[in-house]
């Protein structure tokens, strides 16, 4: 673990000096995480790719300003979160970000027209992922960010607080209500532990 951290620190230091190979490697190491972070936030591949691209372009140009290399992960996610926020605001002015058309504002889930079976009877991973993405998309932006950072990116509460510039208690609160909201949505759609194991 220590050698891994040292390796990452060295990589960041080299990248900050402008070494192209180090920058490329750093992008390779982090691109999947940032892409998935954005994908879960927007539920849309194209937007996720765009934000990921922007995040790494900013990373390349601003990396030399990062004093503490130990803060790299938080710093990188702060950039990504800011871009997500900007994109959300921008798209809100034009059109709402869609997580598919199979759910309404109240969170009721409707099967796709071409699909004849109810989602609870079809738990192929892809379909399940789509349903869970839609559920995430129904959360408020604030709750969604915290849920993604905690549940999928493994941040500690104090790190979430640092990235989103909120208090630790607010982060916990957002996560609690986010999970509670998700529970209600999934219950409404009959997505339970039992229906999940039905398909396996």
């Amino acid at each position, binding site marked *: 673990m220590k050698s891994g951290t040292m390796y990452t620190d060295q990589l960041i230091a080299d990248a900050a000096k402008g070494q192209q*190979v180090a920058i490329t490697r750093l992008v*390779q190491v982090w691109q999947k995480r940032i892409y998935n972070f954005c994908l879960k936030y927007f539920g849309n591949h194209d937007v996720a790719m765009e934000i990921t691209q922007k995040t790494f372009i900013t990373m390349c140009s601003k990396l030399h300003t990062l004093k503490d290399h130990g803060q790299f992960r938080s710093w990188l996610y702060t950039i990504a979160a800011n871009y997500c926020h900007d994109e959300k605001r921008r798209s809100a002015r034009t059109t709402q970000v869609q997580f598919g058309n199979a759910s309404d504002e109240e969170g009721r889930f409707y099967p796709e027209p071409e699909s004849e079976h109810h989602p609870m009877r079809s738990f192929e991973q892809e379909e399940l992922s789509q349903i869970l993405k839609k559920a995430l998309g129904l959360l408020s932006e604030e709750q969604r960010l915290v849920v993604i950072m905690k549940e999928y990116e493994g941040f500690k509460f104090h790190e979430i607080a640092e990235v989103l510039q909120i208090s630790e208690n607010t982060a916990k609160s957002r996560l609690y209500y986010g999970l509670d909201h998700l529970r209600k949505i999934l219950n409404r759609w009959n997505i339970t532990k039992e229906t999940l194991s039905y398909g396996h």
Partner: protein
Amino acid sequence: MDINPDKSQLISYLYGELDCKTKEKIDLKLQQNPSLAAELKALEQTKLLMSELKDEELPQPLIIPTQAPSIGIWQQNWFRVAAALLPLFVALAVILWGNSGQVDPKQELAVAGQSKQQSGLSKEEVIQLIAAQQSKNDSLEIRLMQLQQKLNQLPRASNTPKGPLKPEDGELITKEELLATLGQFRLETNQTLTAMLNDERRQNQVYVDKLLSSLNTYYDSRRDEDLKKIEMALTAMQENQQLQRSKTDYLLSELINNPEPRGSNPNKNK
């Protein structure tokens, strides 16, 4: 949004971010308070469900321009505008020359004449060069106008329509010299542009080579990892197969040695 201490601790408990003392307290609370325990269970189940949302692979690797200058200088808008304006400057000079019949030989129209080392030009430097050139063109125009005025003031000016004019500093320039200067300027500009394009091409080639080598390394490491995983899976399958085989052998030997099914009463059929 505020949250009561119970819920705050509950969420920390759920993600294992409590110290031992507080954790014990919560454990106790959960034993005493069934509704709190039910709440925790509901949160756990939601967490479990949401964990089914797996990561996705990037559909294509990112191409990040890691160095600003590696973007082709000719691909940038300001350069395109400057390139488009360049012929206009030349045309303007020719028109002015046509009107006056004389220009100051000290004035230069070319960007090329000012910068021999084009490969190292930054955006700001080129903008400065263009701005300088524009100001020179402006001053050239003003100078010509002044000369024109002075010529008009000369009593014999109207009687000397042919031949070179004599500007203030006493230097003469003919039409041929001006054309030669413009030709030289055009040549230098072409050379500069060619050098810049070649340099950019070389830089891009180096960048692409490095990118490809990084990608190769990355995919090699991925392939090694995949091979290791496959080997591990195969080993596990073989072990499992061996286990199943031994179980089958055991069951078969049991059946052969004890043909009577377990629990059956031999006296039943009698």
